[in-house]
């Protein structure tokens, strides 16, 4: 009856590659993206030209970064509607305070980060400690953040500093810097989630808060921190926008809320909470962006593009809800 499992005799510290199963979300998103690129090459080569890509990729990078933030919150079973306010606040702080003066840029960024941390802690406190519904708490916080946006800017746009524009809009080895930022943040989030104590516990709590609680983990603290991490990522996105766009408006964050949720869902994270997939989320941002580019190139009017996004979203959720049903069946057995 009792035998030693073969595992005990296997000294290799590396996982057996044959056992690595890629997450279904990763496979789905990657395959969809490859198919889309192939279709683009055949049908609308202009949408994958170097010029088109370098024009559109910075926006994909922004969606990727806010998507990562939204992912961390959704992973904990939350939902962050304060994203528009916090992105817009970072934008106006980074443009209005320096007012074109490079020397003032660093303090402005510092202030933006402080604001993000404060907003994150407030969100986390309301949701994690006061147990308010995440939607209500973040709607309220969004309004407060927009109040701050108007306090800083009065609602009028201002031109960005040359330095910020060089940092965010520049290129290294032909690659837009914003892409590098997005990739670096993706690697950072992946590393923290997979390789650190904090991240591993964060994932476990998202996957099953009740089990984590029973095992003695500090569930509320980690859930609170999710909102802080998210705000920091939104803040980075906002600062980058202030560099990419010459004269960013005070409502720059509004258009990012829906894509941020869409990429999280497309990447396979359940809106009920669970595991987050940072790499898939970033690929999904690229996919969503490329889908728009493709639609534009083949002459679909700009107006119809959101319909395509909605269909992609329904398709994505459909794929995962089938999986969910199957695992639910296994569970009941």
């Amino acid at each position, binding site marked *: *009856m009792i035998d030693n499992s073969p*595992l005990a005799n296997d000294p290799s510290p590396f996982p057996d590659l044959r056992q690595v199963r890629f997450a279904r979300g990763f496979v789905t998103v990657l395959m969809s993206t490859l198919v889309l690129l192939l279709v683009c090459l055949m049908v609308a080569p202009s949408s994958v030209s170097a010029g088109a890509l370098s024009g559109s990729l910075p926006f994909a990078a922004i969606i990727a970064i806010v998507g990562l933030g939204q992912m961390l919150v959704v992973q904990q079973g939350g939902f962050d509607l304060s994203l528009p306010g916090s992105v817009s606040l970072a934008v106006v702080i980074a443009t209005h305070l320096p007012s074109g003066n490079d020397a003032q840029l660093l303090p402005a960024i510092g202030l933006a980060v402080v604001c993000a941390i404060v907003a994150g802690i407030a969100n986390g406190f309301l949701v994690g400690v006061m147990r308010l519904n995440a939607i209500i708490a973040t709607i309220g916080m969004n309004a407060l953040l927009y*109040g701050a946006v*108007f306090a800083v800017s009065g609602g009028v746009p201002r031109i960005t500093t040359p330095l910020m524009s060089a940092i965010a809009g520049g290129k290294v080895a032909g690659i837009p810097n914003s892409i590098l930022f997005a990739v670096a943040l993706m690697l950072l989030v992946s590393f923290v989630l997979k390789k650190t*104590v904090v991240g591993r516990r964060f994932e476990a709590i998202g996957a*099953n808060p*009740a*089990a984590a609680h029973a095992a*003695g983990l500090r569930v509320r603290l980690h859930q609170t921190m999710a909102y802080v991490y998210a705000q920091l990522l939104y803040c980075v996105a906002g600062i980058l926008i202030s560099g990419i766009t010459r004269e960013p408006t005070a409502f720059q964050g509004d258009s990012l809320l829906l894509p941020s949720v869409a990429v999280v869902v497309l990447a396979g994270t359940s809106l009920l909470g669970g595991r987050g997939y940072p790499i898939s989320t970033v690929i999904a941002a690229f996919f969503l962006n490329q889908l728009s580019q493709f639609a534009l190139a083949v002459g679909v009017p700009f107006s119809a593009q959101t*319909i395509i996004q909605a269909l992609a979203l329904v398709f994505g959720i459909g794929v995962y809800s089938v999986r969910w049903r199957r695992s639910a069946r296994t569970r009941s057995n």
Partner: protein
Amino acid sequence: MSGIEPMTQISRVPLTDAKAVQPILRLSDITKEFSGVTALSDVSVDIFPGEVHAILGENGAGKSTMMNIISGVFGPTRGTLSFGEDVITAMTPEKAAAFGVAISYQHPAVLDDLSVLENLRVALPDRVFAGGDPRAIAAAMLEDVGLSVPLTARADSLTVAQKHLLEIAKALALHPRILILDEPTAALDQDATDMLFTRIRRVVAGGTAVIYITHRLAELRQIAHRVTVLRDGRVEGRGMVAEVSDDALLGMIVGRSLASAFPPKCAEVAPPVNFTVTGLSTRKVRDVAFSVGRGQIIGIAGVEGNGQSDLMRALAGLEGWQGDVRLNGTALTPAEVTAQAAYMPSDRHSEGIAAELTVRENATFSAVDRFAQAGIVSRRRELAEVRQIFGSLAVKTPGLEAGILSLSGGNQQKVVMARALLSQPGFILADEPTQGVDVGARFEIYRILREVSASGVPVIVNSSDAAELEGLCDVVVVFSRGRIAETLHGAEVTEDRIVAAAVKAHTHVASASAAQAKPRDGKARLRHLIQSDNATVIPLTAVIVALALYVFSQNGNYLSAFNISNILLLATALGFIALGQTVALLMGGIDLSVGPLSGFLVVVASFFINDGQAPQTIALGFVLMFGIAAVVGTINGCLIRFANFTPIAATLAMYIGLQGMSFVLRDGPDGYFNFAVMDFIGWKLGPIPLAFVVLVVIALVAERILRRNRAGWQLRAIGSDENSARRMGIRVDRSVVLAYVAVSLFTALGAVMLMAQIGVGDPQQGVSYTLASITAVVLGGTSLRGGRGTFIGTLMGAVLLTEVLNAVSFLGLSQMYQYLFQGALILAAALAYSTARSRAQA
């Protein structure tokens, strides 16, 4: 065997003695399998009218399965039920109800968010209340079971005992021919139990057949005529209660099982004590004391729900407790207890494993800090430790990176044990460690627990399987009603002694007046008002009036007829959409698509309702608006109920899609609306727009339906507790889809108002109403958890929100304040309501 048929002689011929009475219900050779696991096999039972038939057996013997088959919750795999002459193979809850079966569940199907009266009305058919004042009839039902609580009291203010009585009252009110009572006295005190027995004797005298499920032999003697004993899904014996001795019954409940495979017990008679608990009390447990010697395993026994799992959770630090806990002689603070404990939960799926994580991640998430340096996990150390512990626990897994669900139940449980051991705990709490575990793995788990205990780590095992405790434990503490009924040592630890101590205990719930409510007086009535869903109306009115007066004092034009009608017109559009949102939130959902839907409907209308169009065309425009809304609502509802979308995901996709459709139809503002139509919509009675009056009337009607109508109760029942709603026979899927259609139709009414406001088909308008509607509903006091809400509150929330936004400009404040007020208002309201609610519950 005095008067009882041993199982081996059971034949398929009629089971009764030559009695003239025909059975009212006959179960013939019923077998029920759940995906390969047999819960009942070849069970035949006859139920006679005018008798109490007790069903006896341990946890997992198949009693609940049998009840669920009789009440039609699921059909038998094989076998038939006969009601008198009717032979039935496929049973449904509707058929069972038609044959006069009523059931009182062990866990009452009582909806916390509804009042006592509403609980009765939603669960019982209308005919019960026909021919009289429903309140009087309901009051008589409560009187009947000796439950004295106000009909308007919310069910969450009831004690557990009161909920049980309410559940029993619902079953009795149907005047059933067959009444099933599943552990009805578990939470009742002596007086309530006596009253219930009197009541049962009365219905039996009237010819009703009562099926009485219990664990307690003492009760059996008091109330039952006939008894059937189940064990492991089989009929172990049956007979007349008067002719069977307690010992014979005990023998049938317990049976014999192989004890050979258990590891040897602790050899020392009095080993040094390393873990003691004295005077420990929690909410459900009183004054518990026991001690564990080095190398001993302590078992916790008792009939399920008598405080055993509460003790385990308290020692794991998951529940508050008072008392003294000592590990190796040192007293532990609650924080230290939490840190030292390693708890293996009984419900593996909900609390033990994280289904999305791999085997390795499941094993290490609590101990992961031990493998880390400066917060970064060393993969090498982690893998080495996991391999070592998996080796010693003999975990069989396809690989460390395999999904946890690919393992068998036994191996999943070993992973949970591995997690407990890796965290190097001070003591181990194993709650039902072998539930859902196959036989082979079961004995390995026993061996591991023995080894852990021998290594000096105290082990406490809670199990509902007395045979398991006999084989595994050195000391067994038997619980009854939250107290220790008996502590068994050494040779006393036998299955018979454990079961006897648990089922023979006579203790009843201590609180003498558990079923009595506080006296009714003015204060209680005020409390009920504060707890009611509409309580928010008073503070909202105060805030609305106070704000209006303040702004008026600053700017005399604020209360001009023009501005009042302006505010009310704006509030009407928001109000209609917010009424829709209230419906979604009441059933525990949400509809994010209302904003874009209202905008889209306006754009659609802008093609038909123009100057110079024929009246028919204009009428067609309105028909299209409501038709499209109904379609959108149906799609939302179907995605949520039939395609497994979460409400957020489904309505978010709809949000994006509708926004796109608006832009497809119009890429900029165009299509001016017909002036006559707009004039009509904006028609005023003095400063009050007619449309606002319509909104108020609709809100009042909706509120009345919500409180007084079956549709309203059903909606709130679903939001309150979907499973209980389903058990009551509510068609949840249909109701939810219809509710989403209602949400969209309310939104269409809002779109009509929006049309008059904007005056042109603008694809950019409307979107903001999603967030505004949620804000208005929250201000009104509807809970996002579902089940509780108010249309009147929502209406006032919409007025207040509009008033605040309007006031900002009258006070000469910048746009910043518009946002700040809005944010502060929603957060203040949410915080105030949530604290008020938690206070009310405390």
